[in-house]
Each structure stands twice: as structure tokens, then as C-alpha cells.
């Protein structure tokens, strides 16, 4: 069965684009459009990888990240940030938190797919189970 990617992104147009590109690359997808519902949905869906925006309504991406890491059911799922925030501080913060990747918008969709493939292939905590 193909890997499942969970998208947490508040711009529904961008979610559609992401779903289209991920499906074309052979992945299953699921999504949430705000940070608050995302955590519960991730627990239900049990995805193999999460694509996470930082600027989200209600609760920002870093907070979502930490909530997912605190829950034993979701702590091992690799997370890739996809954000318009390009400052060094945000990149550093993402790295310190232990993100699997950081992509700045606007981005090349082929680069995103490549990163997703690499993360899923890496012998990380999720893949190693």
C-alpha cells in the first residue's frame, strides 16, 4: 500500500494543488485546514508523513508540532514544514525541534516530492518501526 501524507494547511487552493501533486506521485492524502482539528485527525489517520504550515489559524505550526511530538501515537511521524516564513530564526527553530525538512513558499513541486521520497526512505524513527 502506498504511503499516506497528511497535509495541514489553511489555504484550501494550495491544499488542492498539494493533493494533486502527491496523488500524481502515487501517495494517498488526507488534510486539515487548521491546527486545532489537525492533531485529532492525525491520530485517526496515522499518516506516514506530515506536511505542516507554520501560519495557521488558531494555533501555529510550531505548537501543532509540539503537540504531535508529545503524543505517543504521533510522536514518530516525520514532519516537513512548508511555509512562507523564510527567516533564519524560523529555520533554526524548525531544525531544533527536529523537523524532517523545511520548504519555503513559493516552491518547486518536484523538490517537494523529492524531499517526501527521501524522508520516507530514510531509516528514521518512523520508517524503522
Amino acid at each position, binding site marked *: 500500500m502506498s504511503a499516506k501524507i497528511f497535509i495541514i494547511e489553511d*489555504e484550501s*487552493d494550495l491544499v488542492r*494543488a498539494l493533493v494533486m*501533486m502527491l496523488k500524481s506521485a502515487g501517495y494517498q492524502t488526507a488534510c486539515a485546514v487548521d491546527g486545532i482539528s489537525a492533531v485529532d485527525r492525525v491520530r485517526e489517520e496515522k499518516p506516514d508523513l506530515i506536511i505542516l504550515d507554520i501560519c495557521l489559524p488558531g494555533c501555529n505550526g510550531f505548537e501543532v508540532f509540539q503537540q504531535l511530538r508529545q503524543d505517543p501515537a504521533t510522536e514518530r511521524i516525520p514532519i516537513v514544514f512548508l511555509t*512562507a516564513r523564510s527567516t533564519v530564526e524560523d529555520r533554526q527553530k524548525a531544525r531544533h525541534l527536529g523537523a524532517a525538512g523545511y520548504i519555503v*513558499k*513559493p*516552491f518547486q513541486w518536484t523538490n517537494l516530492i523529492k524531499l517526501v521520497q527521501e524522508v520516507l526512505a530514510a531509516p528514521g524513527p518512523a520508517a524503522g518501526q
Partner: protein
Amino acid sequence: MPRDESFARTVRIAIPFEGSVTEASPKAPRAVVKKKGLAPLDESAGAAPFQELLQSLYDGVLITNAAGLIMDVNERAMDFLLYTKAELSRLNIVNIIAGANEALLETLRRNIEQRRYTLIEASCIRKDRTTFPAEIATNRLVLTPEGHLCFFVRNITKRKKAEEALQQTVTRLKEMDASKSRFVANVSHELRTPLTIINTFVSLVNDGIAGAVSDQQKECLVTVLRNCERLAGLIDDVLDLGRIESGREEFHRARVNLTDLLKQCHHDFIPQCLLRHQQLNLEMPETLPDVLCDRDKIAQVLTNLVGNAHKFTPEEGIITLRATQENDTIRIDIEDNGPGIRPEDQSRIFEAFVQLARSEDSSGSKGTGLGLAICKHIIDIHEGAIQVKSIPEKGSRFFFTLPTYAEDKNFDAFIGDRLRYMEARDRQLAMLVLQIGKLPAQGAAATPEDTTGRLEHLRLPVMEALDCAEEQMFAFESNRTLIVLLDGTEQARDGVAARLQRSLGKQRHEITDDICMAYLEPTRAHTPREWLAQALTLLKPLPVGPMETPPARVLIVDDDASVLNLMVRVLHESGVGLDLKSTTSGYDACIHFGEWNPDLVVLDLHLPDIDGKRVYDSMTKRLPHRATKFLVVSGYRSDIDEIMQLGCDDSLCKPFDFDEFVMKVKRLLNLDSRPTPVPLEAPKHP
């Protein structure tokens, strides 16, 4: 608590003002004492020329006896104060100066004895009880053996108004600038999201994900994508320029190997140049000295200039990247044989948003018009120069200079970068200087090997004691000196020396030399070099190891003498060695505060002479960098709430429990957490 010795000769006294105001808003009077030799009055001078001189003065003059009783005045003083001479002769000078009392006179007399004169900024009270702001210079006048005091009163209403207007303008401009920067940052950020969506869908279509695409359609889509990229570049540039212009961009200048940097840039551009059959040369001497720069920022400048040359030079063109040394600078040239730039455009090319009409735009791509403006800002911060020389049809040569690395320049850059960063964030830096051993003799600089190891031992305990990060540290090694920059708003309020002594005490066996230390409060008034020079004059040996701190100073102000005495007694009996001063007067409290520099003020909010809130206000506003803590006392909860809102440290509501009072005093002075002295450790056995 380290006391800044540079202020030893300057006593600042703030007394809040009360009374009706007519012309300018009330300002608490302030006395600034400066050292000055006093010229003795020539006693042979006749009375007539003296009177003539007195009457002709621009300033109002009041002559008093030693007790402050007015003896003589000039016309001008009468004009200012609206009193007749006879009326004034019945008054004391303290009746004229708002907020003045006997204690102020005492200070004046003492300053005169010490051959210093006092300059008071205060409100003067007219006969009709209205006031005007004045600057009052005081001096002695030896007319009789008892001596007289002489007050020169200058009305400074206009100056005060102008100062206030100027201050308001500056504040408004700063606010406008900040909101402009925020707006630009937000808009640029918001633009990215729709751009991302456009870009993503177009590339999905272009790549055939949404169905087959004809060649003609593909050509259209590629054009859209190229322009998306251009728009993204413009947004990045606007954000970059905004950050650099406002000073919010952080610079980290350090020693950089320029040869590596140029080789990297050359290497990065070769594939693009090959595509357009351009030749990209790199010319530089065998060895280049290191330069002082922010590596990432200079890489950005190189990328921009080489990128421009690549973009505007036709196919088969030649681009040369060249480095040459000129005394203590390195000059970097980026030369092309492209279409060149018209002479009238060359002077404006570094301005933001200047797009030139190019004679030949070979690639069809335009820049954002911001790249060169960003380059210029970056080179300016490096204290270099950036210029262009170009001949139309022949080519262009952009060049910029960078300083070669030198330790003293590195120091200036380090301090400068951080000062700019903090200033842009409206924060201030304090400087802590630690020096190992004595200064090396002139011309006999210590070798790096000699000092590095010892500075290493110092680093850790210092970082630990100050709770600061590695980036805030700077080792100025040739002078055996360690410089630490601190956020002045936080650490300055703490006993830096005390923490340092405690922390270094644990490491005593590793540091065998004497350590000298100086701590300088936040300042914006100096260049980095002057700042350090000032710090070096303040160096004092730091007694390493368990230490005796001088007793903390506590000033207690309460109009109820019995409560006051009780507070003094319980503090004495508490067994905490404290240096206590007490008063029932708000005026006296202000003067004690100015002269005595207490660590803690216990302040009753209900005083007979001045409202306690005004006392608090004048103490905190006039000397914002003092580390003094405040414990306010009042019978009214609402008054306490109001003053706690202003940032007061702690409060007590009357009637209060004296145990609680002692506990709060101890806590504010950090006495309950003081650890027991750590005995000197013996060297560890292997």
C-alpha cells in the same frame, strides 16, 4: 553592587514639582553638579560698577545669605518673579524654587566647599503662584565674611517647549518608520501565499499532471512561471532591503578567507555562464590577506554583481572577477564587456527601485531594481565603498572594497554590529570587561598562546554567572581581555560583580592570575572604542572567591515617625547587615536617593510634603538605569494597584505584619537566596 565611578563627581537630584502651571508642563527640578574652580570676587571693585553689572545682566540674579534669605536682586529677577524688591527681601530662596528646601541649600553649600558649582533645572514660583521652567546657576559671592550665595535664574520656557516639540516629533517619526516597516513586511509576506498557489498550479499543468499540454501552451506556461519567479525575487528583495535599512538585519562580521569565498562564487556561476557561452574569469594574487566581513552578506553582494554581469552581458561575452590588495583594503572588481551604463545613470544606480533603460537587454529579464541598493547597504555597513565605472557599448566595471582583517577593527565591528542590532530593537547594551593579569607593557603584546588558554577558563564561569550565550562573548585576546556584551535591560539590574565573584570562586584553582573587572551601564553616547577606553579606566581587581559584599543600602520613607522607627528597628534586629537611612520627608528622600544611591527604597505613598507617587515617578523616571528596587507601602489598595501597574517591585498594604515586611525586604535584596560561601577547592587529584 558595582558603582560607576565616572559619575562620582556628578550628583543628580530630582525633586518632583507641585503647583499651578501656566507656561510649560511641570518638570521636576534637577541639579547637576560640575567641578569647577571658583574665582574669588575682586573685593576692590566699587559698588557702582557692581550694581551696573548686576542690572545689565540677561539673567535674573538673586543674592542670598548663607541661610538662603534674599538680600539683593536685579531688575530682571523682579520681572521674572513679579515681586517687588521689598517683597523679595522678605523671602527665602527656597520659596522661589519649587520643591526646594533646606536640604537643597545644604547640598549647595557642600558643593561650594568642595569647589564644585551646582546647576539646577527647576520651576520657579512667581508671586501669583504661577511657575516657569528655569535653569539656575549658583555660586558663592564673598561680600561679607559669612559669604553669600548667588543665583542666576534663566527662563528656559522656550527651550523647554522646543525640546518637547522635538521629542514629540522624534517619537512620531520613529513610530511612523516602525509602522511602515511592519506594513512592508506584512504585505510582502501576504503576497507570497497567492503567488505560491499560482506558481504551483501552473507548474502542475506545465508538467502534464492535469493532462497533455501542447508545445504552444507550454511556452505560455513557462512565461508565467518565469514571471512568478521574478515576483518572488522582488518580494525577497523588498523584505531584505526593509530589514537592512531599518537595522533589524543582523550582521556578524568576522575573519573571512576571501580566496575561498571568491572561488566558491566563481564555481557557482560557471554552469550558468557556460549555458550562454560566456567566459567567467577569476583573477587574484597567490595569497590574499583575510578580510573582516559578514561572509553570508558578502556572498550575497558577489552573487548579485556577478548575476547582473551574467544577465546583462550578451552571449560569448567575457566576465572577470578580480581581487587586488590596496594597503589595508581589498578591492573586488566585477568586469564585463556588455552594453554598459549611460553616464547619467551611473550615479543613481545604487538607489532603490531605479531601473535603467538598457540599450540592449539580451535575456529579456529585468532585475528588481533593489539588488544594488541592498549591495550598497551591505558594503556601507562594512565601511567599504561600492562604485561603478562604465563606458556605453564597451562594458561595465563594478567594484567594492573590504577592510583586511585586523584585531582592533574586528573589535569595533563586533561592538558596532551588536549596538546596531540592539538599537533597532530599542534595547541597550551594557559592557562587562574582564582582564587577566596586568596590561602588557607597551610594545610587548602577549602572544595568543599565552592568553587563549586562560581566557578559556574564564569563559565558562562568566557565561554561567551571567546566563549568557556564546554569541554574546567576545575575547579580545591580544590585550588579555574578555569583553561581554549584555542586554542592558535585564542583567544590568542584577549584581553582575557579585554573581561573577561567586561563580569564579568555584574555579579559583584554574585561574591563577589576578582578574580585573569593569562594568559599564548601557550607553549610546560613545563609539565602540571610546566605550572600551572608558571601561578600561574603570578596571578594578575582582576579589575572586567567597567575598564580602558591602551591606545593602535601604532608604525608608514614611511620614509616621512611629512606624518609621519600628521599621528601622525590625530591620536592625533581623540580623541582616543593612545600611539604613530614614526620613519622613519626600523632598529629603529625593535628595538622599540622588546622593546615596540606595539598593532599596521603602516608600510610603502618603507623605505630607509631596505625593508619594510623584516621588516614585521622579526617582524612577530620571534615573531609569538605576538598579534600585522599590517597596511601596500604603493604606489604600487602589493606590498600591496603581503604582504596581507602573512596574514597582513589591508592595505592602497597611496595616502589615512586620515579619512579612522583613521577608519582602530580604527577597528584594536577594538576601534569602544568597548561598553560603563556597570554600576554596583544592586542585583535583587525578
